[in-house]
Each structure stands twice: as structure tokens, then as C-alpha cells.
């Protein structure tokens, strides 16, 4: 196979590289640095007191709870969907593949409104659940549901192209050799999609933690109860507590950075696996 070896940039190349660096610094790096700077601007003391604030802690807890519930659901859902559309040929397959992308295309606010209509006390499902005393809207179940919706494509989107390129041969070979369906999945499919699956999980986590629009509509932003970290950032900002807002923002940014680092590591491991199998 022919591999392209990048060359050293000539003059035009240097200008383009410089322009690229300029935008990366001003648009991406500078705001991040500012978040760190602003959070610690008034000293370590104020930062920790903001961090230990009970509303902040409850927001962190809720955010983590949402992530912990969302990610496994979408991990399973995404793997199942990817499995269905890559291993089987059936009527409506193209439609399903298109529908997976809906959460990408729909504004999260609209998604939130839809869930509000569906699960609100007057809603189609919400009214029925209300009879059993289950509160979805303005409570954590609603936040989890809408986050699941918004983050549902990430795992599937990572897996589908990979599984398509890998084909069915190895799975068929495993079954022919007497493997059960589960043994085939565990010993053949899973190792082959391992890195993509982890990558999809990381993306899902990042998005679940950072989701704002849809959660804002559905949670009611009740301080100390249904406030997630992104919502808390906004609330604190509106309270003119900019150190508090930046403290919460710093937490979110740290999670995002961690995600990026993990993603880079996974990509590195995946590439390494391709060139020299361990």
C-alpha cells in the first residue's frame, strides 16, 4: 500500500500553518486558559468554598449520576444497532441508519420540548406514569432520558463504519467452528471493535456530562435538586457569581480535556495495533 509522507511546508504552506495555529490558539486554547485563570482569580480559598457549596456538590452528583446511567444504556443500544445494520440485510435498514443521526440534526432544545410533551403530566406517557406516582419531568429520570436521546448516535456512529469494513467472515468462521452466539460476540466481535467502542464511550460520556439545551428544558433547574453542572454554570453566572460559574466551568473543561486525552490514547493504541500487533 502506498503511504503518503508529508513534506516540509513551503512559503504558502507556512502561511497556512500559521493561520491554522492562530485560529486554534484564539478560538480554542485562549478560552480554556481563561477558564482556569478566572476560576483561580480570586484565590484558592474562594475556589474551594465555591466547589464545596452544597448546590455545586449536588450538581456534580446529578451530572455524574446522569452520565453513569446514560453511558451503559447507549453502549448497549449503540452496539445492538451497529450489529443489526452491519450484519443483516433487511427492509428499512437505510431508514434506521438515517434515523440514528436524528439527535445530531435536531436541536437539543427541540428534543427537550418533545420529551416535555411526551412525559409531562398532561403528556401521552407522562399522564399514565403519573397515575403510578412516577415523576419524569422536572426530575432526574427526565434528565437521563433526554440525555440518552441526545447521546445515542455516538457509539453506533463509531462502530458502523468499522464493522462494515470488517465484514462478516470472521463471525461466520467462528460459528462454523462451533462457537455459540455469545462466544462469537465475546471472543471475535468484541476484540475487533474494542477501541472504537471505548472511543464511542468516551464521546458519549463527554456529551452526557456537557449536555445543556435539552436538560434545561426538561429539568426545571431546581437548585440542589435537578441542576446539572452546565445548568449550574448558567445559574451562577446569572447570580453574578463569576468565580463560582468559572469553577463549575473548570470542572466541565477538565472532563472535556480528560476525554480528549483518553481519545488520543485510544487512537494511538488502535494505530499501534494495526502496524505492530502486540
Amino acid at each position: 500500500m502506498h503511504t503518503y509522507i508529508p513534506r516540509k511546508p513551503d512559503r504558502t504552506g507556512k502561511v497556512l500553518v500559521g493561520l491554522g495555529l492562530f485560529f486554534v490558539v484564539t478560538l480554542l486554547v485562549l478560552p480554556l486558559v481563561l477558564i482556569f485563570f478566572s476560576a483561580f482569580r480570586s484565590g484558592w480559598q474562594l475556589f474551594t468554598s465555591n466547589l464545596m457549596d452544597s448546590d455545586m456538590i449536588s450538581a456534580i452528583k446529578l451530572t455524574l449520576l446522569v452520565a453513569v446511567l446514560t453511558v451503559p444504556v447507549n453502549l448497549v443500544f449503540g452496539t445492538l444497532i451497529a450489529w443489526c445494520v452491519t450484519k443483516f440485510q433487511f427492509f428499512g435498514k437505510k431508514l434506521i441508519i438515517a434515523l440514528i443521526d436524528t439527535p445530531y440534526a435536531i436541536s437539543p432544545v427541540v428534543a427537550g420540548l418533545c420529551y416535555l410533551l411526551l412525559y409531562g403530566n398532561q403528556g401521552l406517557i407522562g399522564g399514565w406514569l403519573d397515575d403510578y406516582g412516577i415523576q419524569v419531568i422536572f426530575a432526574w429520570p427526565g434528565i437521563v432520558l433526554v440525555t440518552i436521546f441526545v447521546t445515542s448516535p455516538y457509539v453506533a456512529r463509531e462502530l458502523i463504519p468499522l464493522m462494515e469494513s470488517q465484514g462478516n467472515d470472521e463471525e461466520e468462521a467462528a460459528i462454523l467452528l462451533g462457537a455459540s452466539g455469545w462466544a462469537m460476540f465475546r471472543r471475535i466481535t468484541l476484540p475487533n471493535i474494542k477501541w472504537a467502542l471505548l472511543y464511542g464511550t468516551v464521546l458519549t460520556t463527554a456529551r452526557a456530562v456537557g449536555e445543556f439545551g435539552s436538560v434545561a428544558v426538561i429539568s426545571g433547574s431546581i437548585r440542589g435538586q435537578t441542576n446539572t453542572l452546565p445548568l449550574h454554570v448558567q445559574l451562577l453566572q446569572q447570580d453574578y457569581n463569576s468565580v463560582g460559574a468559572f469553577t463549575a466551568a473548570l470542572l466541565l473543561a477538565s472532563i472535556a480535556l480528560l476525554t480528549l486525552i483518553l481519545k488520543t490514547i485510544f487512537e494511538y493504541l488502535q494505530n499501534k495495533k494495526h502496524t505492530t500487533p502486540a
Partner: protein
Amino acid sequence: MSIQVKNIQKNFGNFSALNDVSLDFPTGELVALLGPSGCGKTTLLRIIAGLEQPDHGVVEFHGEDATHVHVRQRQVGFVFQHYALFRHMTVFDNVAFGLTVRPKDKRPSKSEIAERVHELLRLVQLDWLADRYPDQLSGGQRQRIALARALAVEPKVLLLDEPFGALDAKVRKDLRRWLRRLHDELHITSIFVTHDQEEAMEVADRIVVLNKGKIEQIGSPDEVYNNPASPFVYDFIGQVNLFHSRVSEGWAHIGDYKLPAPEHAEIKDSAAVAYVRPHDIELQAEPQGEGFIEATVDNVSTAGSVLRIELRHALSNDIFHVELPRSQERLIDLRPGVTVYARPTNSKVFLKD
């Protein structure tokens, strides 16, 4: 173990991949399913393996209906065109897979598995590669590992789907001789799919020629080559010269020229096609005897084990392909433009429907 397929029908949408196919694969034979791409040969193989279900018809293993037996229980060894080795496992683990996935009570012990794997790797002469990964192997090595893996579960039948299709010419030749020897050692009922007639001729005990989902001919390589049952087979197996002709009372008339067609002695007048293989033609500088066609040498290719000569002649606009042993080079002048006399020594005439 013998395999029978009866009245197999398989459609993909409007496309009929197999049309009422019935076949017998006797125990211990190596049979080639030969045909152009899209003829249904791979579909038939996958139906026998249980990877596809026929729309109609029955697959029998040793006289027992196996049509609805799950792939897992069929005990077939299957070799894929693109090897389908487990890329994240070593060669050893690949070969061991079929044994390690057995339920606990039927699984051999670790040392037994290791012994069996090394025995198989020695059989395919690749014991020294046990710790490598598939992408560190050449195509030929991968296919031999795939075969070892298929044999590990002691299959009752071995199915090979274009096993040499992805290999280069030299490796392909070595590997098919090796497969033939291996089969002579193991005597396991084997079916392999190929579109390469030379491969089928060299390896198989019997050849099944398929075209458009139907069987054209079943026979030994010798029968299929020397006595093709239909124009399709004649055309598909090796190169041919084709003449449009009219048959009457045992002769095929091509313009003023005629070829014997004794099998059509009762036919009064019918359109027909006459086939002559390039090596069934003799060339002479001066005609001695009857039945010679005057022709001009157009082109001679001396790169190969035989002389390939292209002639122009008066019977049709087509080029006349002739193959002669290299020894003839010295006996007859074959420079382009020289006039020679050609005589078919063997021909076959098929009536047009």
C-alpha cells in the same frame, strides 16, 4: 461422509442464484464447483455449510436431512477466500479456537489442545509460525493456517470457497498441488469453488460445471475437457475456435469447407456451431491430403511452453488460434505473412436451439 443436495432453489430478490440443482458428492472425493462469477457456485457451497438457507430443496449429510441443522452442529470445515483468520489472535489461538469454544465437558485439556494444534501446524508445514499474528503472514501462509483451523474440529466435510482466489499465480500453483496431496492423505469429502478451469482440472476428482444457477455438466476433468456436454462448457473450459455452420447428414458446412459431425447424421439442415481447440489443429507448409484450410500467419507468440499462432483465413473474419509444441518451430516457417495450411484433427459440433 457423503453429501446430497436435492432440487435446491435459491433466489435473491428477482435473481435466481440456483435453479433446481441436484447433486451427489460421494464420500472422500474432492469435487470442484466450476463456473463464471454469478453462476451460483458460492451460494451452493454456503447452503451446504448452512450459512444460507435454500428457498426449496434438501441438503442431506450421509442420507440424513440436514437442511435445518444449525451451522454449529453441521461439523463442516469452511475455508474462506479471504482467509477470515481472527486478526487479534495468534496463529496458535486461531487453530485452537474450534477446540477452546467447546462446552467444558467436551473440551480437551490444555495440553491435548496444544498437541493437536502443533500436529495440524506440522501438517500444513507452518509450525514455526505459531506465535505470529495473521497480518504478519503471507497470503499463502494465511490460507494454510485457515485450512489447519478448519481441520482442527475434525470436520466430516471440507468446503473451500475460492481458496486460492486471492493469491498470486506462483503461490496458487504450489498451493493447489499441496491441497491435492493433502486430500490424498486425509480423504475427507471436500468441495471447492473456483472460477479457474485450470485449477479445477488439476485438483479435482470430479468437476461440476455451473452456469446461471444450473448444472451444465458433471464429470471427471478428462470427461469435461475432452467431451464437453454443451457449448457453454466447451467455451468455458479452455480456449476455442468457433465456426458458425450448417449441419446436414453428418457434416458441418462452413462455407465451402466441411467438418465431420457423425453424431448429427439424421439432421437434414440445421444451424450449428463447430468448436475446434487450438491444440487440435495441425499445420503444414504444403497440404498433403484433404481437408486443409489455406491461411496466413498473422502473429506468433513464442513466450511460453507452446507456440501460439494466430492465422487469418477465408472461412470467417475471426482469427484462427493454433497451439503447437515448441519443437514445430524448426519444422515449419511461421513468420508473419507466410501462407500455411491448417487442418483440424478434432472438432465438436453443437446444434443451435
